[in-house]
């Protein structure tokens, strides 16, 4: 595209922006759906762009359709580990001498393999050999570390004005995001493509310890974290939704860099990624840069389909942790996956039952009977790709027995199954859903995340804007029917913290 055309395009866009600021008729969010643009590269990568030129900033969201569910048994948490590795730089950034560093990392890997092999002999291990292998490993680790330009990736992003640099790994997906001033567009294209084309998984064995600290913080040293992990693992006996994305401690300790590399090579790929860009970016420029940079991401085979379908739960399951902390309760009921036709009705059910102060659970358990300090319900755990859990949470007030609270929760849930919901409640839910949807479009980062989620989970970003139609079509009869199907004793998994006497 010629310079002149580019200038003309920008001038036109600026003029449009100017007009928009001039106080015209109220904004209509429905037009946003028409403003989202798609760029599809030859390698299958889809880039979604929503132009917003008020302020010279943009946010992006990279959604990789690979998460905890795609891990092998014995290597839980490796998807999350790769997410950490994606901040460690590439061949071109983060190294003081890439040739030497790669050699050192190879040698380190062999030393680790030898060390692990000896360790796995358990009592039969030769302690002298073990000590010598350990020393050798540490020496090689130190050598590799000396060739690292620590945190070069993060430092570069921050120096160029990047804010909100972060990422997250869930059962379903790995997501990367931050925001930059819009004059940094090409730098972002380089950084974001490079990290998925040429990652160097440096400082791997150190980072294992960081992950262990993260596990300590989120799961092991927090009462609700402990309960949550045990509970979700009990709700799923076959499907990998029952495995925590942070990984089991013993798996983490045995990871090798090769495991993470293999995982990345097998699962990451342009065909299984979508990138959304929202902000002061013009299509023509983005398209040209995208072809140059993101076009190099290998298409990838993508993850294998998950074979196991969670078998139907035939009886109530319970996890009761007795400890000195205050009582807490998770109750999960199996529901179909996000794209199932019943999910809009289930969303209505969850909201009427447990969203907000006027919801059934809050009104009865918190306000009227004062059994619960808080109670709520939501659908969306653990994820959206596979059948999930409609989750109810309740915390008893001081001196309330958790059994009484549990019974009261079931009474409210089952009341919807027997009596249904009122038209007023359903209408209120639909209005609420619409308002929340509109408010969710606020902010570049939010918008980018939503577009990616819709593209990868619903199958098409346009479905994001059609969800409200599906919600509008839900009837009270639908809600009552799904309540009857879901709220059965045999369908529930209960996780409780019970306070030990004398605490």
């Amino acid at each position, binding site marked *: 595209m010629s310079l002149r055309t580019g200038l003309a395009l920008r*001038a036109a866009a600026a003029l449009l922006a*100017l007009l*928009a*600021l*001039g*106080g015209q008729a*109220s*904004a209509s969010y429905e037009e946003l759906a028409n403003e989202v643009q798609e760029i599809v590269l030859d390698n299958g990568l889809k880039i979604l762009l929503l132009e917003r030129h*008020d302020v*010279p*900033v943009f946010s992006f969201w990279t959604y990789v359709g690979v998460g905890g569910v795609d891990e092998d048994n014995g290597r839980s948490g490796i998807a999350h580990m790769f997410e950490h590795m994606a901040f460690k730089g590439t061949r*071109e*950034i983060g*190294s*003081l*001498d*890439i040739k030497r560093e790669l050699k050192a990392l190879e040698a380190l890997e062999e030393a680790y393999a030898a060390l692990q092999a000896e360790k796995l002999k358990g009592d039969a291990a030769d302690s002298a050999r073990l000590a010598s292998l350990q020393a050798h490993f540490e020496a090689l680790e130190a050598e590799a570390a000396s060739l690292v*330009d620590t*945190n*070069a*990736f*993060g430092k*570069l992003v*921050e*120096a160029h*004005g990047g804010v909100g640099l972060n990422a997250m790994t869930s059962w379903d997906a790995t997501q990367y995001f931050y*925001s930059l*001033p819009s*004059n*940094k567009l*090409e730098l972002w294209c*380089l950084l974001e493509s490079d990290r998925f084309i040429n990652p160097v998984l440096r*400082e791997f064995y*150190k980072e294992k310890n*960081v992950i262990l*600290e993260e596990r*300590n*913080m989120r799961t*092991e*040293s*927090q*009462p609700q974290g402990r309960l949550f992990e045990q509970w979700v693992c009990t709700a799923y006996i076959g499907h990998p939704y029952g495995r925590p994305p942070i990984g089991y401690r013993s798996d983490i300790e045995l990871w090798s860099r090769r495991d993470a590399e293999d995982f990345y090579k097998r699962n990451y790929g342009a065909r299984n990624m979508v990138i959304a860009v929202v902000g002061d970016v013009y299509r023509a420029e983005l398209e040209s840069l995208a072809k140059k940079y993101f076009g190099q991401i290998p298409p990838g085979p993508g993850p294998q389909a998950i074979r196991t379908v969670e078998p139907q739960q035939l009886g109530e399951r319970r996890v009761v942790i007795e400890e*000195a902390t*205050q009582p807490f309760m998770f109750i999960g009921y199996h529901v179909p996956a996000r794209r199932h036709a019943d999910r809009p009705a289930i969303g209505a059910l969850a909201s009427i039952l447990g969203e*907000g*102060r*006027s919801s059934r659970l809050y*009104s009865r358990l918190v*306000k009227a009977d004062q059994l619960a*300090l808080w109670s709520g319900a939501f659908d969306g755990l653990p994820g959206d790709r596979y059948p999930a859990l409609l989750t109810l949470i309740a915390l*008893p*007030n001081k001196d309330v027995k958790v059994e009484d609270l549990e019974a009261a929760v079931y009474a409210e849930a089952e009341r919807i199954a027997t009596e249904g919901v009122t038209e*007023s409640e359903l209408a*209120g839910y639909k*209005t*609420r*859903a619409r*308002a929340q949807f*509109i408010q969710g479009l*606020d902010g570049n980062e939010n918008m980018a995340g939503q577009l990616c989620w819709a593209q990868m989970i619903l199958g098409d970003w346009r479905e994001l804007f059609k969800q409200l139609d599906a919600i509008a079509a839900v009837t009270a009869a639908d809600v009552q029917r799904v309540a009857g199907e879901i709220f059965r004793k045999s369908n529930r998994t209960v996780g409780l913290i019970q306070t030990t006497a004398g605490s």
Partner: protein
Amino acid sequence: MTTTIKRTLTGARPLLLALFAVALLPGAGAAAKGRYDKVIGGLPALRDFQVPAVVREELPNGMVLYLVEDHDLPTVRLSAMIRAGRIYEPGAKTGLADLVGEVMRTGGTERYPGDKLDELLENMGASVETGMDEASASASLRCLTENFDEVLAIFVDVLRHPAFPQEKLDLALTQAKSGISRRNDDASGIANREIQKLYYGATSPYARQPEYDTLAAIAQPDLVEFHKYFYHPNNLILIAGGDFETAAMKAKLAAAFGDWPRAETFFPPDPLLSETPMSVNYIEKADVNQSKIRMGHLGIRWDDEYLFPLSVLNEILGGGFSSRLFTEVRSKRELAYGVWAWMITGNHHRMPFTVGVDTKSESTVEAIQLIMKELERVRVEPVTVEELRRAKEGLKNSFVFNFSNPFSIASRKASYEFWGRPADFLDTYLAKVDAVTAADILAAAQARIHPDEMAILVVGKAEDFDAPLSSLGFGEASVIDIAIPEPKFELALPAETPENLAAGRALMDKAVAAHGGARALAAVKSLRMAGDFAIKESGMGPLTFGVVQQRLGDDRLRLETTTPFGNMLQVLTPEVGWMKSPRGKQKIEGDDLAQMWRSERSDVLYLLRHLDDYRALPMASESCAGQECAVVYLKGAGDEGYKLCLGPEGRIHAMEYKDQGQSGPVINFTVLSEYQATGGVQLPRKFVISQDGKEFATMTVKEMAVNPTLAAALFEEPAD
């Protein structure tokens, strides 16, 4: 290539960042050549852009408005900042301000009661919320444009006329008590709460926590009073942003708030602050494998002379991937997932400089020592050229994000006005950051960062630590006991159902009969009583005072006490009281007077004559001080209540209630005996009094006269 928008329609001014856009940034790293350097070298400067116009308006009653239009979405947001806060609640009622913030919304108003409000708002997908902070309170509104008028009416009513209904206060108190019972479950929560007490002092309004007893002292009138005292238009700044026309919104807000009368509020002086002394502190948490470490001391407010060098130092020392702590503690030594250091800029008062790290128990001392080393380093070594340049570039390049959202731009301006910051603070920000040198940072660190005068707190499991905390070199760690103080007086009362109230009243009617009957009790117009008050164990051994008490009606009291150290006289009327002692004469007013009258109500004669002021609730029978008793609880306003044990003859055999002791609230348990009939009324002659379960004193009545003639002068202000 830049696009500069010079023409404006709304009066917005273009923001010239070009001056500070940096074309030449350091390259990608020492060894990276090629692509990164090339791309970075070719990046354009940031283009100019318009900042949305924010309009400020002041209503005649002193309310200040900040308005900004934003037509991207059909939504409207309002946010109010009110001059109120936790620091204005009395210490004995810690928790009051938060209850106001909570119940203002949950209780709704007369026109919009709480539960109706919940339904109404949630069915519109709208929200109105209220809150409380240390030195400010908040109220907010969010809705779709189409609902604005309706939601505005709600917002105005909640701000101006909250009802604070008793049932919603009770709910909030129940929730607050549950919150207290849970506050030691999570190690992070403990660490973040307790470190504030170390920074500010445990009783400081900036750090203190509600307890069961402080909550018990709060009554509904306190909330009404708090709101009435602080919530005035001249104490309030309102921000409005969203899908509206400025002129129309101005008119709506003026119509909604214009007739709200202004009122002057006396704000007491702010709590005094003193520097944090050096201390190492430990809190045991047995169910963790990770220590939560928090350390630091009081820091700065926005008007500190070192603000800008410290802002740059924040980036270098403890913010984000670039920081020294992230690099040293996390990346290089993998001791933590979470580590940070931050000099918070206080708006109202000096906020802390705080360092935090969560590390496995076995690396607790190592992590602390590493951090101490880094804190000492910034005081001794200037930061490197590279660090300085990168930190400044980061701050300057990310500056544009201050303008990414019209509402936040208006909010920030309002906040500057609220806290007294100059309105042009942000205008000079970039230049001031740019001017910071390594020498400036060194001077700032030496002035404001003191690793030898700070509080270190570790919440964790000491038996797993790599070394004892004493090895840090500051002596033995102080062990902080965070056991939640039990409420001194909390009974599980039966519900106030009509049946229960009737049964309770029936029991009290029997007691009235056993004491002589309602008519005889009502016929007592005055009383004179003399006797001995023998304290079992005072600070000076057993002591006995002579006591003469005279009462006229229920609202005049005269108490003469004869002690070995001098005589004391107390005269009480409902409006004022006096106390005369060898040290002189003192007036008794306000809360003190109210407390003394309350003590007087814990009297057999008074209670039996004023049963209509209380709700009587029956409780399980008890064996009480040697007698099988029926038990009734007389519940008054707030936390006033009396547990009465009625003996076999129906008379009051014992009483238990919350009282004011020498050093705070105590549970008073009094056994009443040696009943005699005087003037048709059965009254006890012996009172054995215990406080908090320990026998305290015995009152023995030697003379009792019912309906003596008492001169009015006895109940006037005593002579000097």
